């Protein structure tokens, strides 16, 4: 059970949160211009990496805000938490 530091509320138990999959996948601005393959790439393809992964999380049973998390999927270490729209940490 993670202890997640919501950027708006502070440290809370994982059960207050909902995971929302890979982060930084922007919805295409002009979907109609895309080929089926390009659209499928946006729609279905996710990296699911072993190591540091950037993810979306939602404080669903709290402030309801979405934010991003850099998490090492091999040991579940939360490396960083940052707000929506902010750039992922380089380290």
């Amino acid at each position, binding site marked *: 059970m993670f202890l997640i530091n919501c950027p708006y509320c502070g440290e809370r138990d994982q059960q207050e949160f909902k995971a929302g999959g890979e982060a930084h996948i922007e919805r295409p601005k002009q979907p109609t211009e895309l080929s089926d393959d390009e659209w*499928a790439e946006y729609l279905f393809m996710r990296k699911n990496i072993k190591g540091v992964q950037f993810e979306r999380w939602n404080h*669903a049973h709290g402030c309801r*805000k979405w934010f991003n998390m850099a998490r090492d999927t091999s040991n579940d270490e939360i490396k960083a938490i940052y707000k929506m729209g902010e750039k992922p940490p380089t380290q």
Partner: protein
Amino acid sequence: MTQNLRVKSSEFIDETNRISFKFDGKTYYGFKGDTLASALIANNVHLVGRSFKYHRPRGIMTSGSEEPNAIVQVNPNSNITEPNARATEIEIYEGLEASSQNCWPSVNFDIGGINNFLAPLFPAGFYYKTFMWPKSFWEKYEFFIRHSAGLGKSPNARDPDIYDHRNIHCDVLVVGAGISGILAAKNAAKNNFKTLLLDEKNELGGSTIFEENENNKINHNSASEWLKKEINELKNIKNLEIKTRTSVAAYHQYNYLLARENLTDHLVKKDKKNKIRQRLLKIRAKKVILATGALERPLIFNNNDRPGIMLSSAIKKYSNFYGVACGTKNIFFTNNDSAYESALSLHNKGIKVEAIIDIRENSDAKIIKKINDAGIKIYWSHTIVDTRGYKRLSGVSIMKLSNDGTSVTGSKISISCNCLGIAGGWTPAVHLYTQSGSKLTFDEERKIFIPKADTKEQISVGSCGGDFELDEIITNLNYKLKNFLNINKTDFEGIALENDHETSRRNIWLLPSDQTIGKTKPFVDYQNDATAKDIKLALREGFRSIEHVKRYTTTGMGTDQGKLGNMHALGIIADIAGVKMGELGTTTFRPPYTPLTFGTIVGRNVGEFFDTFRRTPMNDWHINNKAEFENVGQWKRSWYYPKEDETMHQAVQRESKAARMSAGILDASTLGKIDIQGSDASEFLNRVYTNAWSKLAIGKCRYGLMLNEDGMVYDDGVTTRLDENHYIMTTTTGGAANVLGKLEDYLQTEWPELDVYLTSVTDHFATASLCGPNSKKILNKIIPDLDLSDVNFPHMSFKEVLIDKIKCRIMRISFTGELSYEINAPASYGEAIWQKCIEAGKEFNITPYGTETMHLLRAEKGFIIVGQDTDGTMTPIDLQMDWIVSKKKYDFIGKRSLYRSDTMKEDRKQLIGLLTEDPNIVLEEGAQIVSELNQKPVEMLGHVTSSYFSPNLNKSIALAVVKGGKNMMGRKLFVPMENKNISVTVANTVFYDEKNERLNA
């Protein structure tokens, strides 16, 4: 009964408090402070159970939670009996009843014992190998296997006890109250850390508290006396909470630990009453100090499982702590110095120790001299090659070990004894440490796995960290604590320490015998009857991964999870495979450390607290009017209102007819309602719904379909424009929370530039839906001032009105195809407005109807229910709802996916209507649909999604999804059922009032 083995009075046992208990139907006596195990031993009862596979007689082996053999059934004659309780952990109380497991008809004469002689027929993987063929016989095998398998018997009545959960937040959690844990907790609390100290036993002090070795001294006192003073001081320390009888079950990431606190199991029946039995502690600690100690290892030799063969440390605890001798003629078998301490403890109490057998060549520890002075014979470089005695150990045979330790030489010596203490060294209890995700490292020299590294959040101290000798424990503890807690000094820094040091080591995982391995039974996992032979066989058969060997041989898979023998299994594998143990790794240590009751896990979340129910403001009215309820998500919704002895079918037919003939009323309060405000609200709706919203006039309503980005229908509902920048959206009952979540997601992450605010107002409004040709007249009686003409208040429009000075919203919308009004009143006014409608509707025989009638009425009109007629694979096109998909809008959620090659296929499953040839046959929802009856294999074209007998059409109607159904109008298909094939014809999805004339009737 005599307590002939009680040898000394003990400060931990209250001999003034005599307690009677029953074991296997026989009454025995013990004292307050005894465990079931110590009391049985005091009564000279060693045979307490039969082993799992071979039904061999087994006795008590240990004195703690690691016990593999002495697992018993508590309250065996009750229907709330508890299986697999460890006799070594059960504290006796007046009236306790327990019995042996795995034996029939009795532990003394067990028919299954024949398996012992058939043992050659039961090798590792026996079940996998034997019951594989012939395949069709499995059901027959299963019957017999089920009857002979399993440990103990399950209770078959509802658990009457109360359980509880508690959340705890602390600065420092100390697990284990041995000498290290006590000193750690004391110093943490003294330095203002909010500290919690837990121990699974009922007494603090671990193994030091009953230590009698005169060579171990702290501050020139005996270690046990010094520790007792320390424990005494704990009472006066602020910030320190101590919980005994509390076993930590799991150590999860981020210092989240689960512990089971046992509150009443040791009490007599009347004191248990109305009290919480066990409590699950959910602990989030800033820092965790593990002081879980070490478990003594057995030695693996031929027939090492007879009743009377025990861990050397357990014998010491029984004699020093409980004042009980485990045998009258004792032998110890060891590979280290600790057995000599146990032997001396017995000797000093006048209990006979016949000999000590040591596989080492010698030892120069100080204690050896004392043993020699006591006249106890030591056999150096010897091993036990066999043991005797069926229900109780009667003797051992020993031989000299060869230099390389792989064989025995010389002649056999036979020694008689009735108790054998085995001492195979110590295994640090690293279970919790590894559960936390931390890694182990193997100490080749001492043959132990120890924690690889401490962190800022967690340290392991004492023997669980690999420190076994007193000076080493205290010195390292001092150093570690100062760093971990960032303090300058501990209160025990520099204290005088004296103790023995172990200098000589020899480790042999599987001890040799004069017989070939095939003829021996060296048990590695006592509970699961896995022997070293089984492990060897598994390796011979090609198993290499230790996880595979574990599952194939079942080593370490019992309720004790192989706490005793797992290391030997690893050692034997490493020896045979010729790899180093450090490279081999360990099997995964999984929670819980000791078994948990289901009661502890669920706590208070049983019965009515199992899940939360949501009830509408009109709920009491529904109950008073005999409604049957159905669960929709967490909501309790009225399903139908049976009159007198009506069946459900009769009630629904009556309700459905009434709603179309005159007037019906439905509680629609559960529909999700989302209040949408902001200057970009219209643009937002444009993006989330498939149809256009910009031109919707204020005061008008519109039905909308919401897709997922993959083009599949996600939710639907009517949205009303209340004002220029203000909408109220309705969602399906079950989808409300998810829709809000999804909309928030898009707003916050994809379109943060939009000025839109979403608020869930589902609970704020109660909704009464009036329906039927007389609904207008009823509404007119309630609000005479409101002009209800079609010109002023047409279909799909909204009015805000005052009813009894209460602001209500009325939408003229219809889910039944009839003229219909939905009155939304503030929730607190819900029941009153409902009553008002019922009163006003009396002259029109207004009929309350539930969800079943609602479903029937909408099916007559071919309106879909998301989640019933759709299943996450249906596009609006599949549903024949092309009309609601805007061609003009540049984009909306899911639009691009509607043009993927897959979603555009002609032969996708599409929604159609079905009429049965015989109008009286009602299809089963979920039934498969085919076009050919004789085709093999038959092609499944689709399935029925909704099906009813329509009282208004007087025939059966159904909705279904069928491959390429759109182009099958009028085609004959079949619904094959168990006894018959039902002929059906593909029809339009709208069965009733195709021209929508009744909306303005």
